């Protein structure tokens, strides 16, 4: 193990630094008294204060300290180690310190900013730094885990997102396997004849629309030598870990197996099934979804245009759109807003107005949500074209003597409405595609309350764990353009990883003390990631647990499950945590 460059005698020596955070800490906490109390001992080489350790000046100071003083480990009392702590430890690491010999406690958020009483805050900060020093003394130097990344990718889902990611990755020369459950690429966007608010022909002409003579994106994917397209196929099993995952795909021609370095999850969405909301009478032929309306319009183009309702082929004179079907509905649907339905419904209404200028069209909405550039103008034009916007949630669709009526309250005017209608269009919301739960489980991707897959950091898309990137609507409803952006970001991350060919990540993972392991299997059963296997040690004639460091996420479920404390998490070992706690609690004694 690599020790600090100076401390070659193997003795543990710690340096303690207190950060004033440009007054944010030092105004509320008496750092000087804490520094005075922390007496220098053979173990504590130096105690020093700085106005801002994360500043350039602070980093320079730390480097000079490291270069001139004989310590191998550092305890810092400053802000949250999750934020600026990274800057502080990196500065020391650059000067040769093993970064696993570093502990930072948070006396800004946890003392200076949360306890108004200066004495109390100072007392607590003093305890926290003692805890950090005690823990630091128990830390062990470690090396990062280096993981080789295979130069190939799996893309799950052949919709716009999956195709775009596959094309981007393939264009950099990497092999891509794209798995699609249905019998064609293009996904849901391909079935759109128009996209809004631009009224463009799909994204890159990917619609069923007959006017479109070729579908270049899909062709690009099929013709790309680096892309293997597996249609009517599903992911059966994924084993292995970061950088090297073994994939089994069930295809019509049997199981296909291959290894990949990165995975793009683009499983997309499905539309809400409106039959779950009985009062909307979806069983009636003339109550259709926005997706079905799209098909009607496309079919009708071949038959001279216009629009005819499904039940009797009559041209509808009155059409009512009902928004938020299955969305923003805690009881019968989903709480989340599906984001695209408002734009889509208004677009469809305007299309109908183009072919049936005299049609009476109502759109029943709660709020109109179109967080896209051009939406407001688009909505304004719709109003100008005579489309009626009615605020209020439709109570029910009523069938009376073969006629349909919309019962709703116009919450703006307070009028109770009973509108006879020829056609009802339900703007159905979106849910994760069927089977996406299987994929998220297989890849241990966390899902949110809305059941969509989750990012580790919602502000940084595609900063997803360990070579697995979730893109497009698998992460929640969004428009095509945003899905494409996701795809490109995910592809860029995957490409970056594969081009480097390897990556280092922290060894904060489980390890086994084989002399103590009795091979009972409790840790294996507690592990959600299947990172632990029981293996026979032929030499000793025993079976013990082995951890696959690359699969291990370092959560510590195994350590807590082990009766014999034979499995532990690096840097969170029982002794390390206990040393910190004991020091925190010991202070009272020192006070007398």
């Amino acid at each position, binding site marked *: 193990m690599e020790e600090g460059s100076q401390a070659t005698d193997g003795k543990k020596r710690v340096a303690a630094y207190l950060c004033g955070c440009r007054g944010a800490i030092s105004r509320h906490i008496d750092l000087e008294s804490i520094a005075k109390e922390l007496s220098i001992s053979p173990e504590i080489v130096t105690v020093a204060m700085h106005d801002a350790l994360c500043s350039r000046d602070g980093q320079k100071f730390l480097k000079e300290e490291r270069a001139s003083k004989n310590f191998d480990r550092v305890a810092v009392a400053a802000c949250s180690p999750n934020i600026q702590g990274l800057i502080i430890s990196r500065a020391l690491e650059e000067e040769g310190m093993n970064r696993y010999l570093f502990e930072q406690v948070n006396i800004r*958020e946890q003392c200076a900013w949360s306890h108004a009483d200066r004495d109390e805050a100072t007392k607590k900060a003093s305890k926290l730094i003692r805890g950090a020093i005690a823990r630091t003394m128990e830390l062990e130097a470690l090396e990062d885990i280096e993981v080789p990344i295979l130069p190939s990718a799996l893309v799950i889902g052949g919709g716009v997102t999956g195709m775009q990611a596959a094309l981007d990755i393939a264009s950099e020369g990497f092999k891509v396997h794209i798995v699609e459950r249905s019998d064609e690429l293009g996904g849901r966007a391909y079935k759109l004849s128009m996209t809004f608010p631009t009224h463009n022909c799909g994204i890159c002409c990917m619609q069923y629309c007959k006017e479109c003579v070729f579908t270049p994106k899909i062709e690009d994917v099929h013709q790309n030598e680096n892309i293997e397209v597996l249609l009517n196929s599903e992911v059966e099993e994924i084993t292995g870990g970061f950088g090297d995952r073994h994939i089994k795909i069930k295809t019509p021609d049997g199981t296909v197996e291959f290894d990949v370095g990165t995975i793009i999850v683009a499983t997309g969405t499905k539309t809400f099934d409106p039959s779950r909301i009985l009062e909307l009478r979806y069983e009636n032929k003339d109550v259709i979804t926005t997706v079905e309306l799209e098909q009607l319009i496309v079919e009708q183009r071949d038959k001279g245009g216009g629009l005819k309702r499904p039940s009797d082929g009559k041209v509808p004179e009155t059409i009512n759109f009902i928004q938020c079907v299955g969305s923003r509905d805690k009881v019968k649907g989903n709480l989340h807003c599906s984001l695209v339905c408002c734009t889509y419904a208004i677009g469809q209404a305007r299309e109908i107005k183009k072919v049936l200028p005299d049609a009476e069209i109502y759109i029943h909405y709660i709020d109109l949500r179109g967080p896209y550039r051009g939406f407001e103008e688009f909505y304004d034009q719709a109003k100008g074209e005579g489309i009626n916007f009615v605020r209020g949630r439709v109570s029910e669709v009523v069938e009376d003597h073969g006629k349909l009526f919309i019962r709703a309250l116009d919450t703006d005017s307070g009028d109770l409405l009973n509108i006879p209608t020829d056609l009802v269009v339900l703007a159905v919301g979106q849910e994760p595609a069927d089977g996406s739960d299987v994929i998220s489980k297989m890849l241990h991707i966390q899902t949110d*309350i809305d059941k969509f897959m989750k990012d580790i950091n919602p502000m940084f898309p595609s900063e997803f764990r360990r070579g697995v990137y979730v893109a497009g609507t698998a992460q929640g409803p969004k428009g095509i353009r945003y899905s494409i952006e996701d795809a490109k970001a995910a592809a860029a991350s995957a490409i970056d990883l594969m081009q480097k060919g390897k990556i280092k990540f922290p060894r904060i993972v489980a390890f086994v003390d084989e002399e*103590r392991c009795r*091979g*009972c299997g409790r840790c294996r059963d507690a592990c959600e990631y299947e990172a632990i296997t029981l293996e026979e040690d032929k030499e000793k004639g025993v*079976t013990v647990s082995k951890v696959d460091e690359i699969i291990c996420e370092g*959560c510590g479920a195994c350590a807590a*499950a082990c009766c014999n404390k*034979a499995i532990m998490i690096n840097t969170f070992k029982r*002794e390390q945590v206990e040393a910190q706690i004991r020091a925190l609690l010991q202070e009272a004694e020192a006070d007398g």
Partner: protein
Amino acid sequence: MAEGKGGSFEPEIIAFTCTWCGYPSANLAGINKIEYPPNVKIIRVMCSGSVESCVIMDAFENGAHGVIIIGCLMDNCHYVSGNKKAEERVEALKELFDVMGLDSKRLRTEWINASERTKFAKAVNEFVDEVRALGPLPQMKKAREAEPRTAEQTKEKVKQIIEDTSAFDCVECGKCTTVCPIATFDPNFAPRTIVLRAMEGIVENIATDRDIWTCFACEQCNAMCPYKVDYSGFIRGMREEAVKYGAAPLCSQGGLIHSVQRIMANADLNQNRLAWVKDDLKVADKGDVFYFVGCLPHYDAIFKDRRLRLKDICESAVRIMNKAGITPVVSNDEKCCGHDLNWTGNESDFEKLMEYNVDLIKKSGAKKVVFTCPECYRTFNSDYQDLLGDFEFELVHISDFVKQLMDSGDIGADDFSKTPYKFAYHDSCRLGRHSGIYDSPRQLAEGFSGDNYIEMERTKDKAVCCGVSAWANCNAQVKKMQIDRLQEAKKLGADKLLMFCPKCQVHFDCALRDEIPVDRSEVDIEIEDFTVAMARLLSLMEEPKKEPTGTDE
């Protein structure tokens, strides 16, 4: 103890917060300048599910008055199910807290999203108020430990141990290694080499020497040594020296059980030991017969998930005594006998427990103390009396006691129904080799067996150990030994293996629940406590509902 400015009690609270939600929620509270009491000290862990029971107990032992675990919202754990695991663990630990008199209200879990700063502040505020209301706890740890011994001092001490245990007489014949159950399974282990190292004066590694902790002190070697070397005594002495030289014994359960025992030694908590005493049991505060229950209520809580029903043992013992017209004294103030501390190098706490327990029994006016646990019996009979001289009260193991009751006619042989199963009897080391009780269990067994009693092949002083003693040693070799013992009983055709020691039961149960290298049918034998079996045959206890043994979690 922490005191507020006005001299009022201010509790020390340790908050374990997960990296993903608990810790950031505290950060966010700070960023928004939301005040919460400074009593709360935050420890960041990766996941709430990684917080071990032993670490929580260690915090209390070292002066915490409350522990709160804060993790992600349920169904939203960053690691899938860590918070659920934490909740289950804390629920189980609460039961142990209540038995100990620590009050389970001092333990809390909260599931808070990273963004829920006010919820964080509210939760810790409430918790601090609650713990403040519960009041202070007594000092749970002995005052500052003495300075570690120097190598020279240790050398002297080791020399003394060698003399005291006749280890100098060792002629290195190797007889001990031949019978040592550990050496049978682990060729690298040889008892005599530890003696050898000690005799050569090598003490520098004493703190890190694992071999001295590997021994079970099962006394197979003592029984075989032609020169009467007290090997187990030697090991016990060496452990004490190792601890004084700075060793931290490696204990199963992460030292949780030893923590509990040390807390008992050092603090008088309002224990809640007698929850097992059902309304129809006749027990007294004073009387001739004192029933020393031992740590059964604690083990029952610690091993809750195993469903071992260890509290059936004490209930059975009292029911048997009641049948014979005896109303035993059982005390809520009883403490651990100290066996495990005595065998893990903690003499001072052991002696505190000893003095306390002996005083308690004296005050009860008892003339006779009955034990179900072989370890408690051995500790009173050998260790206490070695240190304090012979007691005025009599010490009896339940096997001898029931035998006496039968001899006197208080319990008739016909009162026992015959066993409808074939069974073998496992001699626990503390009862057999340590205390020489071999006959009564067999006489009882033969009495109620019909022809269903099977003698083990390796039996009496040759009986193989359950593999763990004093919670100090457990590993893959130990498991082999346990499987070997279970196979032996099964091969002989036994349906049940009876034993007196609750720890043997825990350890064998462990092997039965483990992933094992042999076919399960070779070991799937029912483990039952001897006292409970007797009570059942006397129709004093009901048969439990059949639960599958082995891998039911």
